[in-house]
């Protein structure tokens, strides 16, 4: 007992070991550091949770785009508030994102050239979203589009669909 006490006071590496060769000081040090490590990891985890908002006051990602009759065949219509193009071709409707896949600038529809062009870094797309020029890595995505019971177009910007899926009206 007196030897143990001496060991913990002086911290000598030659302190009298316990039965398994670990001094009381080493044991307490490891327990403490281990507990602090676990508490540290836990703090990182709860801090991460704290900084990830659970409720976002952002505009709805689903919106009504009006009656389908508003859009003539062979037309590209830019909905500025939603940053979406409603494209109507003979095969049907599709909703193309107006946000450039490069760095998020809003593209512009150029009817004369039949392209969707990004003003920031010069990417160019077909109205179908297919990339034809510029630094953009991917084509413009198509959003899910459907008809409501009262005949309005309904676009869901969280659902990305294949370009082949066209809404026939």
């Amino acid at each position, binding site marked *: 007992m007196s030897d143990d006490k001496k060991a913990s006071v002086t911290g000598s590496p030659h302190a009298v070991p316990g039965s398994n060769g670990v001094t009381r000081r080493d044991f307490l040090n490891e327990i403490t550091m281990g507990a602090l490590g676990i508490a540290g990891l836990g703090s990182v985890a709860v801090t991460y949770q704290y900084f*990830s*908002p659970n409720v*976002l006051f*952002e505009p709805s990602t689903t919106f009504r785009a009006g009656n389908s009759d508003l859009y003539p065949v062979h037309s590209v219509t830019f909905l500025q508030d939603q940053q979406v193009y409603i494209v109507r071709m003979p095969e049907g409707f599709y909703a193309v994102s107006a946000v450039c896949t490069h*760095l*998020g*600038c809003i593209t512009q529809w150029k009817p004369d050239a039949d392209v969707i062009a990004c003003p*920031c870094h010069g990417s160019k797309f077909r109205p179908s979203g297919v990339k034809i020029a510029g630094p953009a890595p991917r084509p413009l995505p198509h959003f899910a589009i459907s008809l409501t019971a009262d005949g309005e177009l309904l676009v869901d910007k969280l659902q990305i669909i294949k370009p082949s899926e066209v809404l026939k009206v």
Partner: protein
Amino acid sequence: MATSFQSALQNLRETKVWKSIFRRGPANTNRTRSLAIFGNLFLHWMPVKVREKSLRMRASYYLGSISFILFIVLFVTGIFLMFYYHPAAPNAYRDMKDLQFVVSNGVFLRNLHRLAAHLMVFAVFWHMFHVFYRGGYKPPHEFNWVVGVLLLLVTLFLSYTGYLLPWDQLAFWAVTVGTNIISAMPFIGHKVRFLLLGGNIVGENALLRFYVLHIVILPLFAFVLIGIHFWRVQKDGGLTVKPKDEDGKE
């Protein structure tokens, strides 16, 4: 006149208050001069002696000092601007416009902050290039070079976070583009963007987060790093002085 001023100063130095603050007697020897520096919180990280050649213009062009002075200007003007600025939409843009057109001397303070920020980025880069081309990153200065690189990053992040605060079109699109660059990071990019913006779009949460980063977190990092940086200049033996500086020839 001079003698009466000196005797008044002498009398002041004899007072109990002066002695309690400065503790040392007159700094009339090298030892007491050194002690005067060591015993002062604001001076203790400065060298008590410098080589004359390290004070020459071309040894540093005082670029580090210029960067620091600009940082202090930004710190003071930034606090002044905070008295009129709300980090919320739509107040932020209106407050910025109020500072320009309504608040007395507001446009002066805002432009002082803005221009000092541009100048600081310029000065910090120039400082870095100057140190690099003089070989100032070589031992024993390697650690301080790395601290300097961190300070460059903090300067750029301060610049970037401050850019959003006017909440105008330029700010909005710069941050849209910048945070999309962040989301290009492999695996964690989108998560980092979400955390930085506090959402999926550049909105009120993003403005508030950038504001807190800009006025609290990054300046705190900057102050600590600047402290280490200055302190290490002295501990590493002062500025890098080349032999050719000795005889005054280039």
